[in-house]
């Protein structure tokens, strides 16, 4: 199968205005992925499924990721003249990156027996602009998994045939897999509390004292 870079150029050639980016992976697996823009996502997905060399007919996994606001640190080597001597100095540049939610799709081809190609879509932010186009019309198997992402992360998939909560109940207001999710204070007792449970018990006791 062609490389991600080749795939990127071919998609950009066939879909007008599509913005793609190859996302590096620094972990040992080095499994890279393709970031696609939500506006052209359905077109790109159709291309990936229908192109005779690709034929990605099976979305094996759809999952979500929550990225908080972070400060990215980048080391840049610059040459500077210090005390009349030119030296190489490492500078750390800090970049603020606003948080967003992400949907990740793992695609395989049953017909040509290759894969996976991983595509990602990102929302504009984590608060009000959390819409992404649903890829269920392209891969029917995404239906429940997109519902799960909606349920646990709060990503709203447009054009999804049946977007309801799937694991939690209707009327539940939080998104439990988000990193800033606050659990209900359901601490009861623990004979030997330690670590996180001890923190929980202290919070619970403080709350109980405030109530009485």
């Amino acid at each position, binding site marked *: 199968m062609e490389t991600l870079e080749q795939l990127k150029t071919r998609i950009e050639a066939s879909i007008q205005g599509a913005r793609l980016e190859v996302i590096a992976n620094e972990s040992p697996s080095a499994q890279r992925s393709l970031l696609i823009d939500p506006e052209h996502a359905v077109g790109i997905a159709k291309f990936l499924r229908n192109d005779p060399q690709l034929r990605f007919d099976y979305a094996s996994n759809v999952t979500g990721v929550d990225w908080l606001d972070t400060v990215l640190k980048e080391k840049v080597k610059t040459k500077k003249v210090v005390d009349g001597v030119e030296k190489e100095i490492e500078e750390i540049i800090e970049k603020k990156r606003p948080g967003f939610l992400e949907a990740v799709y793992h695609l395989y081809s049953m017909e040509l027996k290759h894969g996976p190609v991983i595509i990602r879509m990102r929302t504009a932010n984590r608060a009000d602009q959390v819409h992404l186009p649903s890829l269920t019309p392209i891969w029917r198997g995404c239906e429940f998994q997109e519902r799960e992402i909606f349920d646990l992360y709060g990503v709203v998939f447009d054009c999804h045939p049946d977007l309801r909560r799937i*694991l*939690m*109940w*209707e*009327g*539940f*207001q*939080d998104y*439990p897999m988000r990193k800033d*999710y606050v*659990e*209900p204070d*359901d601490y*009861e*007792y*623990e*004979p030997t509390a330690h670590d*996180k*449970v001890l923190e*929980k018990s202290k919070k619970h006791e403080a709350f109980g004292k405030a109530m009485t």
Partner: protein
Amino acid sequence: MIDEGLRSELSKQGIFTLKLEELYNWGRKNSVWPLQFGLACCAIEMIATSMARYDLARFGAEVFRPSPRQADLMIVAGTVTKKMAPQVIRLYNQMPEPKYVIAMGACAISGGPFKQGYNVLKGIDRYIPVDVHIPGCPPRPEALLHAFMTLQKKIEEQSLTSAQRPRHLDANAPSEFPIPRYGAHDLEPPSNRNVWQPPTVTRTE
């Protein structure tokens, strides 16, 4: 009260004398029909228990009823999620008295490995009275048989007229328990304090 010597003498002649209470409890304990429902992997062990190798039929409990109206025993076999809890309690409420509950496995008795999570009940005894708790993840079929024998012993020892009489003979005792509602963040209320109170931990240095 009949004299023990006389009773033994009569039994040698083939005449059995016993209290009505004993006969009544003997009949009850030997035909406890469980409700046929399972929630997670513990249900697989429950199914194994009912099959030929472990043979729950030896204890008169082979008839798993698909309707709560015909069941005497609820085996809560598996993880009770907060989403599932109201349905479990509703099934319990629909069972006729006398009814008993076995909480099977770590999840059903305490939340088990999911105890610190947001989505699992920290034990079904927060909402309904449980007669026998079985630890294990999942418990072996032998453990369920032991729990069943423990329940039989409990039924056998129930006195029908004293203050400790079973719930179904006490007009004032509740037969149904309130079903929690789905709240915005958690079940409301998070536990039924008439059924369950968090134990107070006292430490001696």
